[in-house]
C-alpha cells in the first residue's frame, strides 16, 4: 500500500471533516431558541443586562460568519471552545466521555461481527435448514425493532423482572474504591445489556450479509476444488470461503461505524451510559453550541478514521487491490 494513497485518504478525510464542521455550525444555528435564555432559565431567570452579558461572554452577539471563523480557527489550533452550559472546556467534557463511547461502540461492533458472521456461516452451510430460517427471521426482527425499544425491553426483563444486570450506568458507585479487577468486572457487567442492545441490529445485518456472501463463495470452483482435494469442512468454511466472503462484510463494517455511533446516542440515553451520545443529546436540548459541535467533530473524526481503516483492511484482505490507487 503506497504512502501517497494513505496521505490522499487522510487529506480527503480532513476536507470532509471541515465540511462537517461548517455545515453543522450553520444547521445548529437554524434551530429556534437562544442559548442565553437557556442559561438564564437554568439560573432561575435573569435581567436583560445579564442576558446581554451572557451573549457577550460567549460571543453570541457577533455575526454568525464571524462566529464560524472564530470557531474554525479555534478547531484548527486544537481548541474546541468552552461549553455554554457547564463552563468547562469541551475537550474535557469529551475526554471524560469518549472512553465509555468507544468501549460501547467497539464492543457492540465486535459482538455484532463475531456473532453475526458465525450465525451467517452456520446458516450458509444449509441454506434451507432451520438455522438459515432462524437467521432470516432474526435479521428481519433486528432491522425492524427500534434500538431504544430493545433497550427498554431488556431493562424490564433483565434488570427489573429478573435483576441479573444493572439497570443503568457504567459502574456501581458503591464500588468506586474497590480493587481494579472488581471494578473491571463491574464495568463488564454493566456493559453487557447496552452493548448487546446496540449490537443486535447490526448483528442481524452481518448474519444476513455473511450468509449471502458465503452462499455465493461456497458455490465457486475453488471451494469445490478444495473439497475435492479432501480439505476438512471447517477449513473450507473458515479458511478458504470466509476470507473471500469477508470482503463485503468489511466494507459494511466500515460504513456501519457511523450508524453505530448514532445508535449509541439512543442506547447511551436509555442505559444512562456516560458517553458522548448522551452529552450530544442533552447539549442539543440546551443549545450548547460548542459542545454539540465538539461531539459532532469527534464523531465525524471517528467515522473518517473507521473508513480509512476499512480501506486499509480491505486491501489487506484482498491482494488484488494492493498497488491500485
Amino acid at each position, binding site marked *: 500500500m503506497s504512502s501517497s494513497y494513505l496521505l490522499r485518504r487522510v487529506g480527503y478525510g480532513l476536507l470532509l471533516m471541515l465540511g462537517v464542521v461548517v455545515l453543522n455550525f450553520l444547521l445548529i444555528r437554524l434551530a429556534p*431558541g437562544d442559548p442565553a*435564555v437557556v442559561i438564564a*432559565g437554568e*439560573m*432561575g431567570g435573569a435581567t436583560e443586562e445579564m442576558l446581554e452579558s451572557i451573549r457577550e461572554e460567549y460571543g453570541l452577539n457577533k455575526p454568525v460568519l464571524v462566529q464560524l471563523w472564530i470557531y474554525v480557527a479555534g478547531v484548527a489550533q486544537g481548541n474546541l471552545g468552552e461549553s455554554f452550559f*457547564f*463552563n468547562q472546556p469541551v475537550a474535557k467534557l469529551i475526554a471524560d466521555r469518549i472512553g465509555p463511547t468507544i468501549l460501547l461502540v467497539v464492543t457492540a461492533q465486535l459482538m455484532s461481527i463475531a456473532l453475526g458472521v458465525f450465525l451467517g456461516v452456520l446458516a450458509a452451510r444449509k441454506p434451507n435448514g432451520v438455522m438459515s430460517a432462524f437467521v432470516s427471521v432474526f435479521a428481519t426482527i433486528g432491522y425492524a425493532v427500534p434500538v431504544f425499544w430493545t433497550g427498554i425491553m431488556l431493562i424490564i426483563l433483565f434488570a427489573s423482572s429478573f435483576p441479573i444486570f444493572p439497570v443503568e*450506568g457504567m459502574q456501581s458507585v458503591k464500588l468506586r474504591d474497590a480493587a481494579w479487577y472488581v471494578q473491571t468486572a463491574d464495568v463488564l457487567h454493566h456493559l453487557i445489556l447496552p452493548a448487546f442492545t446496540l449490537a443486535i441490529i447490526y448483528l442481524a445485518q452481518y448474519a444476513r450479509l455473511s450468509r449471502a456472501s458465503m452462499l455465493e463463495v461456497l458455490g465457486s470452483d475453488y471451494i469445490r476444488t478444495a473439497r475435492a482435494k479432501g480439505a476438512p469442512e471447517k477449513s473450507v468454511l473458515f479458511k478458504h470461503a470466509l476470507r473471500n466472503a469477508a470482503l463485503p462484510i468489511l466494507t459494511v463494517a466500515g460504513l456501519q461505524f457511523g450508524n453505530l455511533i448514532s445508535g449509541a446516542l439512543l442506547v447511551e440515553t*436509555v442505559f444512562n451510559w456516560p458517553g458522548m451520545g448522551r452529552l450530544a443529546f*442533552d447539549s442539543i436540548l440546551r443549545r450548547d453550541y460548542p459542545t454539540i459541535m465538539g461531539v459532532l467533530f469527534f464523531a465525524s473524526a471517528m467515522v473518517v478514521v473507521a473508513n480509512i481503516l476499512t480501506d486499509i483492511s480491505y486491501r489487506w484482505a484482498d491482494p488484488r487491490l494492493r498497488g491500485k490507487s
Partner: protein
Amino acid sequence: MKLMTRLMGAAAIAAGTLASAPVFAEGGTLVIASTQVARHLNGAVQSGTATAVPSTQIFASPLRYDENWEPQPYLAKSWEVSDDGLTVTLNLVDNATFHDGKPVTSEDVAFSIMTTKENHPFKSMFAPVEAVETPDAHTAIIKLSQPHPALLLALSPALAPVIPKHIYGDGQDVKSHPANSAPVGSGPFMLEEFKAGEVTVLKKNPNFFIDGRPKLDEIIIRIIKDPSALLIAMENGEADLYPFMAGSQEIKRLEKADHLAITADGYAGIGPINWLAFNTTSDKLKDVRVRQAIAYAVDRDFITKALHRGVSQQQRGPIIESSPFFMVPDETYDTDLDKANALMAEAGFADGMELTIDYIPGPKEQQQSVAEYLKSQLKKIGIDLTVRAAPDFPTWAGRVGGHDFELTMDIVFNWGDPVIGVHRTYLCSNIRKGVIWSNTQQYCNEKVDEILAKAAVELDVEKRKALYAEFQQIIAQDVPLYTINSLPYHTAYDKKLTNVPTGIWGTMHPMDMVEWSE
C-alpha cells in the same frame, strides 16, 4: 413494695426505649439519584435545585432553617436586627475553616453577600444591601438602604453560600469561575469529583466546625436522566434517596417498595406552583372577564384528584399555601360553567373564540396533560383551544419570554419569601421582553406595585400578612394567571436512613445529621 414496683416499671420503660432506639451505623455512603443536571456547584451565582443540593453540602451559610420557618445558627452563632431594620449583625463562629484549611472570616461573608448580590439571578434577595462591614474577623454587619424582611431567609444555605474570598476574589468573573466546578467551601462535605452531567462525589469534611458531624462518610449524586431507570435503581437499592419526585406514577410505584419511605415534607420553602398564565395584552385575553371565565371553567379538583391521582394539592393563590403569608382569597373560582359562559357573553365572545396554549416540555403530567384537559374543558365555554407543543425548553422559553403566546402552562417557584419568588411575576417594572420568568403576563396594576413595595420593607409579620392578603385578593380578581396546584414534590428514601432533611428547604440543606441505622 411500691418502690420496687416503680423501679421495675422504670427498668421496663428503659429496656423498651433501648430496644426501640435505632442503632446507628458508622459513616457509610449515601447515593442520591437525580434527573436534574447541575451546570456547576456554586449556589452564589446559580439558582435551581440541581446546584443547590450539592452546593448546600459544600458551602456553609450564615443561617439555616428548621421546618417551622425559624432561623437557626450555622456560621453565625447569633444575630441581631436593629430596631429600624437597617442593620443586621452576624456574630460568626470562630472555628470554621474552608476545606483548604483557611479560616472563614467576616471578610468571606461580606465578599459572598456582595458577590451574590451582583451575580445571582434573584436580584431582590440582597438588593437593599448597601455594604457589609467587618469590624473584626468574626463580626459582619449588613447595612441596608431600607428594612428587608426577606434578608434572614436569604441567608439560608440554598441562597447564600459563603464562598472563599481568597479563591473567588482573584478578579475573574465569578459566574464562569473555574472554581465553580471545583469548589472549596466550609460545609460538611468536600468535593472529591465533579463529572458534569454524570456524577458528583462528596467526602466527609473531617474539620467541619460542628462537632460530631457529618455522620456520613460520603455522598454521591448520580444523574440518571431516564426516570424509569431511576425508579428501578431506587427499587434495586442502587440509589438510596430520590428528591424532587413529582410524577404520580413514580410516587405510587415507589410507595410499593418495602424498603423505601416517601415523604412530601421538605418543599415548603421552594414553593413550586403549577399555573396557567395569560398574555394579558392579547386582544382576546385583555378583558378580565375572559380570564375569569376560563378560571371558572377549570376544575382544580379534577386536575389534582384525577390527572394527578391525588398526589398534588390545590393552589388557590400566588403565594404557596404552605407559606405563612398565604390566605384563601374570597374568589377561588370554584367550577361554574354557567357563570363562565355568561362572562364570555358579557365580554362579547358569545360565539366563542380560538386560543393557543403552550406548555413547558418536561413533567408531562403537570403540563401537557393539563393543557390537553383544558382543550376539552374550555370547549364547554366556546373556546377552541390549540395545544402547541415545544420540542424543547429553548423553544418554549423563546415564545413565552418573547411574549409570543396567548396561554401557557408554567411551573414557578416561590423561593421562600414572596419578595424573592413572588413579586417578580406581578411588578410592572419587571415586564422584560426576552426574559423568562419575569412578568411575562405583562400584567400591570399600580395598586399591586404599591402593596408589594410596602410588603418588601415591612418588618412586622402581621402587617406584612395583611398586605399580602390584600395583594392576593386583587390578583384573584384580576387573574393575570390562574394557579392550579402545588407541584407534588416528594422524596423517596431508604427506611434505614435517619434525619433525612424535611425542613423548609428539604434536601437543599446540609445533610450533616443524616446517618444510616443498622
